[in-house]
């Protein structure tokens, strides 16, 4: 414990406070699916291997390791059976943060909250010895892959250094790069506001095709949820400079709310259909509350 506290103190940053870190250390990431890990870890694997936990029997075929033959069963049945044990492996955990300019809105900004969430989840993974891969849309091709709690400073260093930028590719392109780079399966947490004119659907489909356990944290700022605007305005899109002229009226705001609800509902139903866990979130909500309560109930952590 002393080491973890020390680490927490050393790496205390704006993203993760020591209190948050101490809380996060007691958690672990859960996957609804069981994946094959690359290294021996603390999780059960699909693979049968060497562990203390019995899994199954199977017929002996020539070439099998004689050490796993169940001699008691041979004595009873006069046949050779092999005892299979569950293999324990590590978990591949990916966080994928949208760093487009639209994430720069809100107080605190959506991007900050997104990084906080990513840091929290990654920290949990590091504490449990999982393989943690952190990347943003613009660094999708070169993620930071970490293992072990000692690497927490690298994690935080990377996240703190990242900033929302206009070079951030569209979601589809970013996900394509991500998939090409990360061949393995695992848990992927995508944190985005989904404010993408070309849509998020194809990108998500690509992830689904990799049979990964996908979590989509849909992060929206209060300005987007309840726009506090008045009068005749010319709205300018911060990403592509697109303008929209509106005369704000109660009717218009009502219609906006309707559109927003539709947008969220569409995303939710899209995700539900594809076994993607959809987690709506507000940027004005504390990240640890989100991690502690929302993601716990959604089953990502426990």
């Amino acid at each position, binding site marked *: 414990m002393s080491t973890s506290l020390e680490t927490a103190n050393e790496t205390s940053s704006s993203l993760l406070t020591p209190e948050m870190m101490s809380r996060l250390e007691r958690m672990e990431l859960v996957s609804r699916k069981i994946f094959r890990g690359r290294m021996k870890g603390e999780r059960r694997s699909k693979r049968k291997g060497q562990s203390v936990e019995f899994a199954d029997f199977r017929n002996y075929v020539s070439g099998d390791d004689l050490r796993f033959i169940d001699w008691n069963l041979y004595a009873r049945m006069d046949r050779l059976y092999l005892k299979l044990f569950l293999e324990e492996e590590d978990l591949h955990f990916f966080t994928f943060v949208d760093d487009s300019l639209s994430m720069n*809105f809100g107080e605190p900004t959506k991007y900050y909250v997104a990084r906080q969430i990513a840091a929290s989840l990654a920290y949990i993974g590091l504490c449990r010895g999982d393989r943690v891969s952190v990347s943003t849309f613009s660094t999708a091709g070169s993620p930071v892959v970490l293992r072990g709690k000692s690497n927490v400073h690298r994690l935080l260093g990377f996240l703190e250094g990242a900033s929302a930028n206009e070079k951030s590719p569209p979601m589809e392109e970013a996900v394509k790069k991500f998939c090409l780079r990360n061949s393995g399966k695992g848990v992927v947490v995508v944190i985005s506001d989904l404010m993408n004119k070309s849509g998020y659907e194809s990108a998500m489909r690509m992830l689904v095709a990799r049979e990964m356990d996908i979590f989509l944290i849909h992060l929206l700022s209060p300005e*987007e949820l309840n726009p506090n605007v*008045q009068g005749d305005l010319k709205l300018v899109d911060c990403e592509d400079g697109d303008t929209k002229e509106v005369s*704000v009226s109660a009717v218009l705001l009502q219609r*906006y709310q309707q559109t927003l609800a539709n947008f969220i509902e569409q995303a939710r139903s899209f995700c539900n259909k594809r076994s993607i866990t959809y987690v709506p979130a507000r940027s004005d909500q504390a990240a640890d509350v989100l991690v502690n309560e929302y993601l716990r109930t959604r089953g990502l952590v426990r």
Partner: protein
Amino acid sequence: MNWINALSWPQWLLLAAIPPAVLSLYFLKLKRKRLEVSSTLLWRKTLEDIHVNSIWQRLRKNLLLYLQLAFLALLILACLRPGWSGQDRIGERRIYVIDNSASMQATDTSPSRLELAKEKVKNLLSETASDDVGMVIAFSDRADVRQGFTKDKTRLLAAVDSIQPTNHPTDISEALRAAAGLANPGRSSFDNLSDIQVADAIPATVYLLSDGGFGDLGDSDLGQLKVEFLPIGETGTANVGVLSFAVQRNEDKKNQLEAFARIGNFGEEPVEFTASLEINGELVDASSVKVAAKQETGILFELEQIEEGELALKLDHEDALSIDNTAYAAIRPNKPISVLLVTPGNSALETALTTGRCQRIANVRVESPTFLIDSAYLANDTESLFDLIIFDQCAPTMMPESNTLFMGSKPPSLSEPKKDSDESKKPSEVALGEADFSKDWQFGPSSGPVIILDVNRSNPMTQYLEMGSVVILEGMTVTPPENGTVLMTSDSGPVFAVAPRGPFQDAVLGFGMLQSTSEGIQVNSDWSIKRSFPVFVYSVVEYLGGGITETSAPTVLPGNAIGLTLSNRFDNYRVVSPTGQKIELTRNNESRFTFTQTDQVGMYSVFADEMERPMERFCVNLFSGRESELTVASAIQMGADKIEATSNFVRARQELWRWILGVGLVVLMVEWVIFNRRIFI
């Protein structure tokens, strides 16, 4: 509900252009504020169905526009002046007779009775249908047709507005005659109605707006006139007024003056107040006055002898009518008449000229006929210093520049002055010896005895004379020139006449008291020992001398004419009114001036030519119990008919347009608030 178009066609067009303008302003968007958002994705989706680009879809549910259009609709509606009238009266002829006498200045109804009456007439006018014709008459003690029959309401309203309060007393009969003349066949109408359609003599309704300060109208034949009496004012309005105010000499104490006033209380309550007397603007006396309800009281101020002055009596009492709370009187300038008596010797005449009363008004200088050829007299027209020159048994060579009285002598001819030829002759010869035939005055031969048959009672000089017992031994008939007046007629013809000569008057008596004959001076008549002789002399001095006899200046009611007897010595006079207005008076052939511009209450002073001191004063006072009595009549007695007041009759056209405009403004305000605060949409 009916409508009155309040706007002209161009104005309507302008108004009609506003709604499209408002609509177009909604399309011409205002300059928009730039706002950066994270993404326009959601806004784009939101606007997609609004942006169907249908105009009507855009206008749908735009409350601001609806409010503005509602405001405009109200504005247009208001301009149509919707309203309803109490009664339907179409094609009527109405005569609005408005009282603007002094009592209508009473402030018992705010702001004044006259204003209320005008307001009521305006209401009546607004109620009238467009076919109705109306006429406006204002009356006080005279009637004034402000507007003849017309359908033009604007002119009628302007006529009503032009009515100003006067200080005159009330006499409605002239106004009713004027109205009746237009309504009844066979009566004359007014002359100056040329540009307006003159009403045929058909029945008309007279709306009489007055407080009823006039008495019984007698048997006024109104013919087809229907009179509606609308009383103006509160019944039982209290008022205190001065009913008379005069100043006179104290009969007992020669050097004292008495100012006397009669004050009436027309209210239901007894009143007590202070009456203060001012002379020339300075307070000299005050007295507490108590008057019981509906009673009158007199007050007396004793004053030291003063030469002249302006007196004002002020009642320190607040009531509805203030004009009768101040009364004016003036002590006349004490300026005796200059009389020159030219006589060879006539003790009776001299005695008559030196009686007490005569002395009070006249300075008499006695000269013998030689004075007439005195170089001093001839050199500087001495006669112009005299108001009256009496020639007894003598005559001048030419007529002097003053009024004259010839007693037993003939005035010189006006046409042929014979100054040079007469110079050598003795005055007596001039007077008696010349049988100078005056071209203007015609004289008969001396004959006798003369018996006076008739005396002209209408002339001030002879009005008090009783000549029946007078014995006249010899006299000649006197025929005045043109414009002359015969004052005494004897058995043989006129013996006393007066005739104007330019601004002057000459009186010629055909017989003298004494007669110089070759046997000496003989008595010609016993008139000089009769009582009527000094009366005659006094009257002559008073009349021909422009005599001012009374201490107190005359006073008249506002609007009434005043006759002024002014000295002949000046041709031009000016009257200064209480407000300082100067009115020029020019002498015509009359010896008396008539001044009519007495509308203002107060002190009027008459100045001669360039003189600093006033020659004469007179006052205009509202000494009228009827005007001071502010009680509103409940009915008019018109002969046998009694016209009851119909106060509830005035049912004005109820105008809505002001209210609609008000609501419109509220709508505009709400619109503005919503626009600024976005409280609803």
